[in-house]
């Protein structure tokens, strides 16, 4: 993930988590330190945003996914092993930020909450679909949006994932009549957390915000522990060499794994 020799030289010590930055697009001669870190993750994407200019929205969302490093299937799949918390932290942060902004705008009369489209809930089909998607996510290393972004950046695994998704869509379309009763069952309409738990939005918002913050902090701590375990002794400059969650370098087939002791600056770029 990082070239410690290049990146760390001459920089002040940093804590382990901060040091585990991602370099993208760089080789041995182009370390290109970058971009993904807590302070860079407050981007609202991947939460069903709508726009009068769908092309712009798609482009922005895809661009942010790309610069956030979410085109890396190893990084995404590692979330499920609790070895790489970026996805959860980014998503949870985005959700909480969006929630606060939406309800604040609504409270100030700037936004009509009733006009925001909320996907209707079909509880059990949703649970089953979520499980199927989760399994596909683990196996393939992408969710649908990130796979498209990966494909557009010429990643072969992204291409195959998209082909698989298209085939799955075709298969679903051809077979949905066989289970359409289940498919349309347990309809709950426009179901939101305030409605389900019976809390007014006012008190509920800070409660969920705190809940989200605890999650992010909690998972951040888990992530830090894991990072520390993987990088027990940061280099002199305070920068460790991190392997990706699956033990290899995440940035392509020609990359090489970092050394186990974290002291050697192996370039995974």
């Amino acid at each position, binding site marked *: 993930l990082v070239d410690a020799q290049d990146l760390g030289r001459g920089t002040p010590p940093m804590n382990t988590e901060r040091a585990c930055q991602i370099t993208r697009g760089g080789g041995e001669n182009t370390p290109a330190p970058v971009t993904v870190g807590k302070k860079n993750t407050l981007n609202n994407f991947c939460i069903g945003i709508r726009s009068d200019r*769908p092309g712009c929205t798609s482009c922005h969302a895809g661009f942010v996914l790309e610069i956030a490093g979410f085109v890396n299937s190893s990084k995404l799949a590692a979330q499920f092993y609790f070895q790489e918390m970026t996805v959860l932290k980014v998503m949870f942060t985005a959700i909480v930020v969006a929630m606060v902004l939406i309800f604040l705008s609504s409270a100030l*009369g700037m936004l009509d*909450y009733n006009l925001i489209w909320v996907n209707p809930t079909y509880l059990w089909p949703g649970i089953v679909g979520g499980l199927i998607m989760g399994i596909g996510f683990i196996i393939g290393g992408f969710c*649908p949006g990130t796979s498209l972004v990966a494909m557009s950046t010429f990643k072969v695994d992204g291409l195959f994932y998209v082909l698989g998704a298209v085939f799955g869509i075709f298969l679903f379309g051809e077979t949905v009549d066989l289970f359409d009763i289940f498919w349309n069952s347990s309809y709950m309409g426009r179901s939101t957390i305030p409605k389900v738990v019976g809390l007014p939005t*006012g008190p509920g918002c800070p409660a969920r915000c705190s809940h989200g913050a605890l999650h992010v902090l909690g998972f951040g701590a888990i992530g830090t522990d894991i990072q520390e375990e993987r990088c027990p002794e940061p280099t002199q400059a305070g920068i460790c060499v991190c392997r990706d969650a699956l033990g290899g370098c995440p940035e392509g087939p020609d990359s090489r794994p970092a050394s186990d002791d974290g002291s050697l600056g192996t370039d995974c770029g």
Partner: protein
Amino acid sequence: MLSAGALKVLILGQPATMDRWARIAVERQAQLDEREVYIHPGELLDTMHDHRLNLVMLDVREEADYNLFHLADADRIPIEEIPARIPALHMEPANTVFVVMSNDEIAATECWKILVAESIPNVYILEDGSNGWISTLGSDENRLRALDGGEVGDLRYAFAAALGSAFPAADPNPHDYDIEYTPKIKLELKHAPISGGCG
């Protein structure tokens, strides 16, 4: 900053229906004053048989009046239960036209204000309510008779039996009538989601 925003949401809360109405009252009250949203029974009859539209008729009268007579497929809903029904109404398809009705126009207008404040699109009021409907389309019905007097908001007809929508006037054949009216329904299409879900 996030916590401050959440705290502000806690303090401000979310706007109630009347707050929402107050924000749009100037514009929407003008529609009421100009009677832009009161549709003639003839237009409702045509709309009932226009299969391009999904018509939802909400009858806000008392249950006794509803049992006496109501339009075919009209749902009775007490006005105090309207707010709870709002999320379901939002889930109606984009080609839905909502028509609210009462015995005259008073209760229906109050219901219209709630629905419009809650951003339900394409809401109209039946002109002169059930009384207007019967006088236009049920005058030849021999199982009812017009009453003199009565209070505002009352049904101005007496019925031989509480047949609900079994009266022919509850679902008349549009081809039997030649009614002239000024069309007022303008379908405001809401946009379906164009993206969503994770990534």
